[in-house]
């Protein structure tokens, strides 16, 4: 595929996305003229682009669509649900056609073709007028050049005379760009802009083209080459080309054929340098005497032409010309500076990899400098590491994209699904500008889709049930995203029926996921829906409910080092919360040491560090400013040999609203951490998120704070549960605070 086509496909997809968003908006606000114009513009841009890459099916289809949009824009038809549905389907169809183009398949398969034909029929039905689908077979009408009598005009340049049709703009064409392109074939010696066809202000439609150009072009190209420049507007313009050294009579013929009056044309031809004044005079005089047909403008006698020519305008033109050429060159150069740069994703990945290596190498240099105790060297390396840090941040920034695009896709989903289900549901989006890593965004789409569909299908009740429960008939599904201590939180919530705990419990027992006599907290019960093969819906619907959903969602999210959980209030709705790391490549880490090994705690999850003292050996929580903080000894967790030093430290970490302490031997400070994945062998290792390489070349393990915090709080619960009846009142209350603060 050539570069133009791939750019076209990419841009068209963006236009389609915008068009779809606007169509959905149109449904809400039918008479927003700006919005309708936007839809029209998107379709128009796609059509124009399709014309350039010569993709016939898209041009003809979009043309028809545009006709309908034009009718809509002029207020000749009202926005109805069936109309917007049709337009959305057209959007999809255009997407499919683009897909074909992308896959370099020339003709659509029978199914798509039939679908396209059906849509075409429906579009036509809406238009109610017999619109012809313009076939894009490029016609090549030979322009007759009669050789007739008369002297040869001494000129070595082509003369091109073009009058653009009124519909050129509507066809997405920009006449000037053709003329500019013409200039690339050779040198434009003279150009005259003809605007005589323009009516008075009242009748003038600013979206119609009334322009024409007389161009003198010096080029080695053939007539066919010149004609090819105008291929895309061929149906919509009058084009006359006179080769170099044409007979004077041909120029005269040209003058007579063109719609403008003869005198004015003669003047124009002289001005753009095609003819001399004498030649025109002679030609017209000959014409007059031989044919007995006086020029149309018979009131103006021939001498008038001469008078005009000596008008100082002609002289001035030469003066201005010189400046013109230079200015055009300057402006063309500037136009090439685009505001956006498209970069291949793999190039970006390569850059991130290199930055990762740079960070490690920088850390190594830093370490050596500190060992050398050379002050200058230490200073130099610290400047260097600051710069590396900046480079790292901006390199990662390059991969950050806003989640908004992913969210807005769901407008369409909600619309279609709610129509299918016969429910009235609106989608509210917040936090669309929250940024996260591109690779994460790409992978989060499917799990989100599942959650949204689940909410639409199972969450929101039918309108009559809602009214019965005293809720508004229109259900609401919300998507929300925000940053929270180094992770991104995405929430899908609905105001529907919520999850039925007893039903889930019964189902879980039936599926032997839990023991009938097991005691589980409410949140543990409702999170059972993420277990494989779990669905409480009795009836399998077309959308979801086949029992393959939620465990896949959790697996996908876990693969991104994220977590998903659900909270629900029966009768009021449920909220699914996805927590994801911001990036998968490099993080700011906090380096801690246990014995000789080093571990990295993601800095974003570190709340504070406190000294570890006066703690009895068997208690696993401490009183931190009046709150109970469960903690874990890393030394015990990893069964490190040796005796703990006299002075230990506790790193207080936070994850998802839960806090826990991690007891370590020493704190070694901030460290830029390039995450290296662990091998498959360690896939089932709990509490370790990955590894990294220290400046010294040693390997440090990255702690998985989420897993640690969970295991800490679970251990506390288990430890306490069997003792519960035997505990005194005072310790029971402190235990419950421990649990509360751990939640």
């Amino acid at each position, binding site marked *: 595929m050539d570069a133009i086509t791939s750019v076209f496909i990419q841009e068209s997809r963006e236009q389609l996305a915008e068009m779809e968003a606007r169509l959905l908006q149109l449904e809400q606000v039918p008479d927003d003229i700006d919005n309708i*114009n936007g839809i029209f*513009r998107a379709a128009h841009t796609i059509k124009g682009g399709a014309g350039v890459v010569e993709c016939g099916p898209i041009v003809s289809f979009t043309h028809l669509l545009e006709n309908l949009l034009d009718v809509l824009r002029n207020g000749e038809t009202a926005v109805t649900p069936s109309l917007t549905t049709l337009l959305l389907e057209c959007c999809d169809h255009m997407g499919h056609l683009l897909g074909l183009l992308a896959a370099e398949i020339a003709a659509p398969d029978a199914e798509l073709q039939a679908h396209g034909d059906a849509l075409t029929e429906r579009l036509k039905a809406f238009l109610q007028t017999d619109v012809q689908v313009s076939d894009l077979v490029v016609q090549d009408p030979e322009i007759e050049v009669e050789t007739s009598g008369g002297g040869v005009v001494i000129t070595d340049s082509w003369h091109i005379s073009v009058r*653009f049709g009124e519909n050129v*703009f509507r066809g997405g064409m*920009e*006449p*000037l760009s053709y*003329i*500019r392109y013409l200039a690339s074939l050779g040198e434009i010696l*003279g*150009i*005259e*802009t003809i*605007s005589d066809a*323009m009516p*008075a*202000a009242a009748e*003038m439609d*600013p*979206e119609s*083209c*009334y*322009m024409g*150009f007389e161009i003198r072009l010096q080029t080695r190209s053939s007539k066919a080459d010149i004609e090819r420049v105008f291929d895309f507007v061929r149906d919509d313009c009058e084009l006359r080309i006179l080769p170099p050294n044409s007979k004077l009579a041909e120029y005269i013929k040209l003058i007579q054929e063109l719609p403008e009056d003869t005198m004015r044309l003669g003047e124009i031809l002289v001005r*753009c340098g095609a003819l001399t004044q004498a030649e025109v005079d002679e030609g017209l005089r000959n014409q007059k005497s031989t044919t007995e047909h006086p020029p149309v403008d018979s009131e103006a006698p021939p001498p008038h032409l001469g008078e005009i020519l000596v008008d100082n*305008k002609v002289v*001035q*033109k030469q003066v*201005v010309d010189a*400046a*013109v050429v*230079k*200015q*055009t060159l*300057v*402006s*063309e150069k*500037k136009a090439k500076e685009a505001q956006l740069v498209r970069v291949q994703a793999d190039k970006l990945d390569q850059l991130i990899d290199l930055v990762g290596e740079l960070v490690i190498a920088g850390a190594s240099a830093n370490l050596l400098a500190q060992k050398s105790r050379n002050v200058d060297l230490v200073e130099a390396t610290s400047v260097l590491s600051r710069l590396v840090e900046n480079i790292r941040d901006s390199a990662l920034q390059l991969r950050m994209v806003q989640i908004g695009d992913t969210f807005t896709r769901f407008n369409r989903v909600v619309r279609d699904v709610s129509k299918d289900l016969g429910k009235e549901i609106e989608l509210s989006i917040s936090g669309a500008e929250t940024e996260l890593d591109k690779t994460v965004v790409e992978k989060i789409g499917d799990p989100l889709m599942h959650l949204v569909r689940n909410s639409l299908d199972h969450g929101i009740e039918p309108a009559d049930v809602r009214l019965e429960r005293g809720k508004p008939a229109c259900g609401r599904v919300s998507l929300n995203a925000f940053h929270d201590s180094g992770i991104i939180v995405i929430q899908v919530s609905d105001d529907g029926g919520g999850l039925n705990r007893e039903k889930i419990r019964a189902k879980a027992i039936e599926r032997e996921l839990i023991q009938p006599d097991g005691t589980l907290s409410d949140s543990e019960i409702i999170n059972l829906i993420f277990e494989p093969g779990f669905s409480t819906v009795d009836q399998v619907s077309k959308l979801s409910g086949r029992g393959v959903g939620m465990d896949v969602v959790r697996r996908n999210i876990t693969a991104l080092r994220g977590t998903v959980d659900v909270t629900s209030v029966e009768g009021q709705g449920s909220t699914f919360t996805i927590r994801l790391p911001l990036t998968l490549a490099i993080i700011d880490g906090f380096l801690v040491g246990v014995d000789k090994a080093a571990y990295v705690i993601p800095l974003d999850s570190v709340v504070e560090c406190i000294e570890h003292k006066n703690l009895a050996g068997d208690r696993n929580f401490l009183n931190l400013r009046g709150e109970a903080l469960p903690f874990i000894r890393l030394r015990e967790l990893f069964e490190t040999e040796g005796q703990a030093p006299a002075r230990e430290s506790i790193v207080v970490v936070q994850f998802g609203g839960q806090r826990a302490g991690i007891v370590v031997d020493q704190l070694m400070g901030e460290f830029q951490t390039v995450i290296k994945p662990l091998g498959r062998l360690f896939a089932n290792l709990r509490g370790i998120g990955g590894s990294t390489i220290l400046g010294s070349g040693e390997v440090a393990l990255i702690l998985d704070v989420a897993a640690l915090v969970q295991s800490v709080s679970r251990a506390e619960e288990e430890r306490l549960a069997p003792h519960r009846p035997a505990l005194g009142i005072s310790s029971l209350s402190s235990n419950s605070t421990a649990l509360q603060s751990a939640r």
Partner: protein
Amino acid sequence: MPSSQLLSITEDMTIYHALEHKQTLLDALSSTDDLELNLSEVGEMDTAGLQLLILVKKEAQRAGKSVRIVAHSQAVSSVIDFCNMAVEFGDPLIIPAHQAS
């Protein structure tokens, strides 16, 4: 009626704005005898934009008024130059020194 009135256009003079610009220009012309156009903020101009400039010039001529473009942006002057309308329009084009070289 003021003797001369200045109208500044700041949006792109392209087909997308053609409808509103036509109205703006004609309204401005109807309220004065001597309209001055400041186009120094126009970022882009296409054939439709040029067409409107021609229209307003023609209308002015018809009504015996005058329309002068007092400031061109780079985009405007390059289109006018390219189409060889500079003389037709008769407005002074300022060529910045650093670009003329």
